[in-house]
């Protein structure tokens, strides 16, 4: 089973490819976390049963595969039928029979399962033509949705581990580092530090032992790119890590995975076991004499462990408190040895760069931000899901072309990037190119790639309060400015959102934020005031309305508004009456409804369901 040489890898790849080619029609079912939640497993089981019972596998040369996340999570469960690329969304087990009869046997397309463009109302047959996909360029996500993450042969068939073979046999470690440096690859986890420079420093640091680690802790709420890669293409991460280990001279390492991602852990473990069996991990990899092995470290559920020094402490079995990094972890990291830590997406890019060449990668994107970036596009946007685009594309293109615009065509208010350390950008920043430096300049940051779209029903003060609450909960508590300071910022915002804001609160927030930024120990604290500072920068009027007028125009801060049904707009459909969890809406059918303000909890269920936008904030 072991693939001991580059030659035998080539043979194995050829065999795997020909096996794939013998399949005439392939049914790919998404089994990412999103689709699983929508019931994709039942679809797979049903397909399996039907196909096997009818012996279709042999007759039609049919293949059935469960894949990682296709990205278009909201429309799941997703089924793609290759080679035509027919894209079915929202597939239920009861649709399976029809899919087999019509599509697989007769070659017909089932109209009702096709995706319908919300703007043009047209049904689209092939997934490559759906705007959500057609504007994307997938490098880190290149194999996801195309291969079975549980099969190393599938990965080898699409050229997997060829990059590792090239690196080990045709390149010196220095050449690998040069290539990564030339590609301009920067860390995708948030900091955007040039990967080549990091690797070089690590290689040059004198030491007996070096480590190569992967950060799959993805703590930013609203981001799930790394989860999807680990679930959908785990071998790409492992291959990238082995290449990196070869380059820096490391012989062991860990993948630090969030415990909230059980499926990612499962798939990574399976992939590691397979890679070991094939000899891509362990001793004498591909006959090169080089050894590297990796094991999984499950995170304990702490956002701060995304910070490199905290992560390394956690890997070493300790409490994940960051330390001051006056000596960088590339020089003194895990067990005080030189350590390279990159995140999942960064590692997944590495084999592609070796295979396709650094120049090709460097021509993508903008000057200092090369290549592509995966984003999780979520929030109040029509097409939520996972997208990968070349750097330099504008926020407007991502949100309105790929994302299809705002749900219900409501007004756009802001987009939040960079997770809790990032910021909220308003409409007039939508034409900014998305790259590391531009976003930072605008007061936000690239972060790991969460992109949360907000409409006019999102309160920016509440959003800032939300992030601070998150950070109060996630601060390790070691240093005073972060522990006490962020808590105090949160207290002030709680007061403002509760309608107890005082004149002078904004100034107090600003001066305290300054100290937190300059005095905190680690990046978590130093960036903790970002959500508040960026919303103050672009949405100061909302803060002032909360404090001075006692109004929350977005209808979020419950003490600062009430709901009213517009007499002109209400059609008396009764939807809101059904939706109200506290029975506070009264009215007869076809008559104007009324809200009982005394019992209304202002949960907004009525406003969400109203089709004619009759529920107003006053």
């Amino acid at each position: 089973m072991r693939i001991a040489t580059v030659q035998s890898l080539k043979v194995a790849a050829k065999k795997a490819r020909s096996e794939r080619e013998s399949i005439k029609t392939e049914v790919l079912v998404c089994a990412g976390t999103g689709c699983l939640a929508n019931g994709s497993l039942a679809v797979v089981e049903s397909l399996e049963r039907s196909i096997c019972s009818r012996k279709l596998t042999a007759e039609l040369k049919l293949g059935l595969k469960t894949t990682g996340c296709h990205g278009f999570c909201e429309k799941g469960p997703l089924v793609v039928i290759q080679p035509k690329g027919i894209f079915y969304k929202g597939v239920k087990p009861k649709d399976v029979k029809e899919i087999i009869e019509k599509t697989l046997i007769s070659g017909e397309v089932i109209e009702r399962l096709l995706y319908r463009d919300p703007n043009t109302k047209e049904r689209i047959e092939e997934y490559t033509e759906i705007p959500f996909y057609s504007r994307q360029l997938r490098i880190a996500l290149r194999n996801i949705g195309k291969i079975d993450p549980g099969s190393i042969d599938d990965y080898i068939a699409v050229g997997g581990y060829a990059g590792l073979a090239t690196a080990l046999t045709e390149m010196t470690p220095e050449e690998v580092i040069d290539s990564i440096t030339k590609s301009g690859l920067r860390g995708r986890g948030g900091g955007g530090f040039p990967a080549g420079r990091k690797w070089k420093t690590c290689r040059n640091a004198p030491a007996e032992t070096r480590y190569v680690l992967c950060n799959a802790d993805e703590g930013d709420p609203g981001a799930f790119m790394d989860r999807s890669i680990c679930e959908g293409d785990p071998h790409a991460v492992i291959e990238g890590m082995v290449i990196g280990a070869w380059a820096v001279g490391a012989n062991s390492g860990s993948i630090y995975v969030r415990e909230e991602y059980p499926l990612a852990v499962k798939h990574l473990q399976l992939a590691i076991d397979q890679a070991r069996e094939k000899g891509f991990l362990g001793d004498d990899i591909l006959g090169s004499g080089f050894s590297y092995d990796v094991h999984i470290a499950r995170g304990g559920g702490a956002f701060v462990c995304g910070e490199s020094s905290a992560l390394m402490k956690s890997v070493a079995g300790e409490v994940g408190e960051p330390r001051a990094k006056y000596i960088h972890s590339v020089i003194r990291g895990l067990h005080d040895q030189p350590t390279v830590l990159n995140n999942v997406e960064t590692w997944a890019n590495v084999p592609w760069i070796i295979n396709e060449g650094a120049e090709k990668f460097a021509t993508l994107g903008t000057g200092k931000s090369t290549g592509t970036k995966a984003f999780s596009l979520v929030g109040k946007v029509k097409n939520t899901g996972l997208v990968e685009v070349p750097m330099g594309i504008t926020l407007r293109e991502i949100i309105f072309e790929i994302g299809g615009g705002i749900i219900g065509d409501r007004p756009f208010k802001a987009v939040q990037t960079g997770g809790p350390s990032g910021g909220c950008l308003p409409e007039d920043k939508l034409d900014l190119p998305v790259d590391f430096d531009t976003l930072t300049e605008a007061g936000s940051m690239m972060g790991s790639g969460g992109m949360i779209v907000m409409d006019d029903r999102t309160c920016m003060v509440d959003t800032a309060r939300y992030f601070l609450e998150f950070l109060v909960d996630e601060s390790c508590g070691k240093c005073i400015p972060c522990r006490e300071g962020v808590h105090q910022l949160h207290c002030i915002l709680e007061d403002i959102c509760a309608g107890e804001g005082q004149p002078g609160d904004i100034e107090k927030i600003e001066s305290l934020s300054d100290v937190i930024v300059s005095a905190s120990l680690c990046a978590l604290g130093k960036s903790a005031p970002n959500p508040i500072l960026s919303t103050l920068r672009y949405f100061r009027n909302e803060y002032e309305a909360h404090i001075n007028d006692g109004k929350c125009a977005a209808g979020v801060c419950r003490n600062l508004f009430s709901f009213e049904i517009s007499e002109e707009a209400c059609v008396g459909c009764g939807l809101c009456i059904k939706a109200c969890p506290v029975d506070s809406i009264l009215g007869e059918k076809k008559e104007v409804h009324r809200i009982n303000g005394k019992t209304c909890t202002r949960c907004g269920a009525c406003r969400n369901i109203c089709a004619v936008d009759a529920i107003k904030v006053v």
Partner: protein
Amino acid sequence: MTKTCVDPKKARKILDRYPSGDGTSLIHALQDIQAEFGYVPCEAAELLCEHLSVPISKAFSAATFYKAFSLEPKGDVVIRVCTGTACHIRGAQTLVDELCSILNVAPGKTTKDLKFTLETVNCVGACAMAPVVSLNGEYHGNVQPGTMSKKIRGGK
């Protein structure tokens, strides 16, 4: 601290997976203990620390620092409301409030009858289906106020 009986055989089985004296395994082993017992019982932690030659104070610090661990037994049904950003702006807080009032517990707590534990989690990575609630690991997407309560009531 609730006095509980920990089956030492079960604990021993977990310990055997880790080389004795290797303190770096502390968190992994605690995770296994959490998975086995549903919480980290003091007795199991003591056995573990002896096995790994780690002071018990370190195990306690880790068990209280990381969210994955609980020092008290959890309910039969663990309800986790995702409060990630995407879920928040689509109304996760309303769901939390609602569940708190139905179950009469604060987030992070377990009902007296040990049937339900209500937790919030900072993003399960299923943002596209926000707001998300998971019941014993099974995800429910696009949950509207009012619908969750019926599910819980049905189970109660």
